[in-house]
């Protein structure tokens, strides 16, 4: 696969009356990349995805796949999992998936074999003859994922794919996303499970009030933050680290001190200074998690 499979969101805006849902939003999901799309409720994630799928129309801006504006033919190559899960409740799983595959352009025979393949992969093969509403919620989610995958999509757009899944299903889902990305498919999904996003995603975008506030790898997002060092030395006084070059004290309580280090500060010198105050029970470098970064961005 070539670069022709980069999904580009180019300056899209959307208003609902006076409410600005998306404000000149731009970003890219590159081929073979898993992109985590995070933001508070109402930040504009679902609106962005709906616009990408043509379910909603943007007031301005454009969505392109490999430079080509996304029209109905391109859209049929996208695997989509809407936030509002939706399947025909009274239709049998197999018939339903086969129908959706055909709507995406597969022949009937191709659709049938794809349904077999994906229902086996997702552990719902024995339920193909059952109606959707007779399945547990977790299995309905798996059917919904199968619906997004059954036509061998060139792009995956998944709105909250992990919500409501049990841990086993989360693992299956994660494996599928990684596997699809390895074949060069750009994958974008939204989630509130930030530890999962941090673990799975190559890059992350944090959206707030319809604008992308931070975007990049988790490491890049941490870029602005200097590393923090946590030292637990019960015998130390509040100002034990004050004389050290390139080090400033963030907090000190109960013998636990949090320090920020300028680039180039010598951590061994700090450890030596700490040991002079007495026993040291903990000496650890703390890197902010995505959750902390997210809180910071959203609070800003």
């Amino acid at each position, binding site marked *: 696969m070539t670069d022709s499979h980069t999904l580009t969101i180019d300056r899209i805006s959307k208003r609902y009356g006076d409410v600005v849902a998306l404000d000149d939003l731009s970003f890219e999901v590159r081929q073979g990349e898993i992109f985590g799309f995070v933001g508070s409720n109402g930040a504009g994630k679902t609106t962005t995805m709906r616009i990408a799928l043509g379910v909603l129309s943007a007031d301005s801006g454009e969505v392109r796949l490999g430079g080509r504006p996304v029209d109905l033919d391109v859209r049929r190559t996208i695997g989509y999992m809407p936030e509002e899960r939706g399947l025909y*409740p009274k239709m049998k799983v197999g018939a339903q998936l086969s129908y959706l595959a055909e*709507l995406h352009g597969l022949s009937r025979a191709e659709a049938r074999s794809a349904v077999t393949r994906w229902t086996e992969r997702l552990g719902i093969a024995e339920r193909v003859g059952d109606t959707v509403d007779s399945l547990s919620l977790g299995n309905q989610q798996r059917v919904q994922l199968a619906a997004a995958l059954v036509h061998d999509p060139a792009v995956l757009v998944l709105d909250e794919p992990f919500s409501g899944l049990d841990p086993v299903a989360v693992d299956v889902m994660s494996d599928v996303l990684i596997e699809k990305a390895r074949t060069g498919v750009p994958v974008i999904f939204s989630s509130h499970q930030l530890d999962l996003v941090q673990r799975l995603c190559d890059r992350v975008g944090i959206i707030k009030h319809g604008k992308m506030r931070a975007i990049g790898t988790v490491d890049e997002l941490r870029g602005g933050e200097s590393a923090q060092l946590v030292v637990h030395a019960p015998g130390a006084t509040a100002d034990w680290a004050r004389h050290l070059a390139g080090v400033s004290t963030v907090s000190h309580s109960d013998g636990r001190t949090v320090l920020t280090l300028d680039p180039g500060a010598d951590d061994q010198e700090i450890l030596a200074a700490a040991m002079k105050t007495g026993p040291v029970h903990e000496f650890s470098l703390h890197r902010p998690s995505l959750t902390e970064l997210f809180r910071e961005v959203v609070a800003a």
Partner: protein
Amino acid sequence: MNTARAVRLVARREFLTQVRKKSFLISNVVILIAIVGGIVGYSIFSGGDDADRAAIGLVGDQSLSPALVAAGEQVGTSVEVSEIPDEQTARDRVGSGDLDVALIPNPDGSATAVTESEIDAGLRTVVDIAVTGQAQQRALTAQGVDVEQLSADMGAAVVTVETIDPPDPEEGQRIAMSIAAVTLLYMQILGFGMYVAMGVVEEKSSRVVELLLSTLRPLQLLWGKVIGIGAVGLVQLAAYGVAGVGAGLATGVLTVTGTALGVFAGTLGWFVLGFTFFAVLYAAAGSMVSRQEDVNSTTMPLMLLIMAMFFSAFSAVGNPDGTLSNVLSWIPPFSAILMPLRMAAGVTGPVQVIGTIALMTVVTVALSLVAAKIYQRSILRVGKTVSWREAFGR
């Protein structure tokens, strides 16, 4: 993927979903059996002349028998005369309902008619004519009149009836076919229109529509649904028609083969037009609500319109060529139900048939554009029910 394939895929799903329902299959088998059974039953109970013949028992002298049969033919009340050995047997058989009347001739030429409670007026006339006729004949013979010559002379004095506007011998069959066509069209349009609305709401309330609309244009989904469900309605109507007309012709209840086939074809054709007219409106009505429970609020006006059509058609059955029926049959959608009726009644011509079809088609196309717009605008709007006023106003 082109539009034709997209619409075909949607239509196929709608068709299969509908015809695979157990309730659908069972109810259709029951209705088909009822149609054929009803017609066969009707032919058995109304067709045989024996049931109509009045049974007269004649006690003793049987010379009155030919006079009774002749009088029956003359009056139009055919009778069957049987010989009864004695008076007591005659009374018993009247009592058991075996005989309508037992006639006991007296030696003086008078006769006693024994019946259960009262004697039918026609039968009374038959008996009177026979008895007085026999008495008259005897009297004339006694006076030396040549009775045979007399009846030959009188035979020429016959009144021939000439009608200016003869009654249509097919009228009964035409009325029956009109009522059948009107009733079926009413049920099919109302029922399958409602299926369209419910199908649209099902997709909307289950949110599957969002997935569908990421691969289909709203109009492809709309027309696929209308065509798929309409095809089920058409097949069902054709099955009823084949069963009804077939059973009617086979049993001899229907004798007007050409008219029956014309009405059958006309009903199918007008179903297509009438259904399409309402189906697009029903789809719009379905798209305007978010929950199944609310669908009645937006389909109510459509149901009222269909019922108005039905009642206007029923009032026209007795007078299919009246002014009201003539005027309404030009107005869509009333034409959809009145034209098959007028065709069954044989009171329309090719100009009106072609004219009304053209008018109905034009109006249906125009309406489908408006309804499709409403559908397109409402199908993803979840929440409050959109009213018709709002839907047309936007």
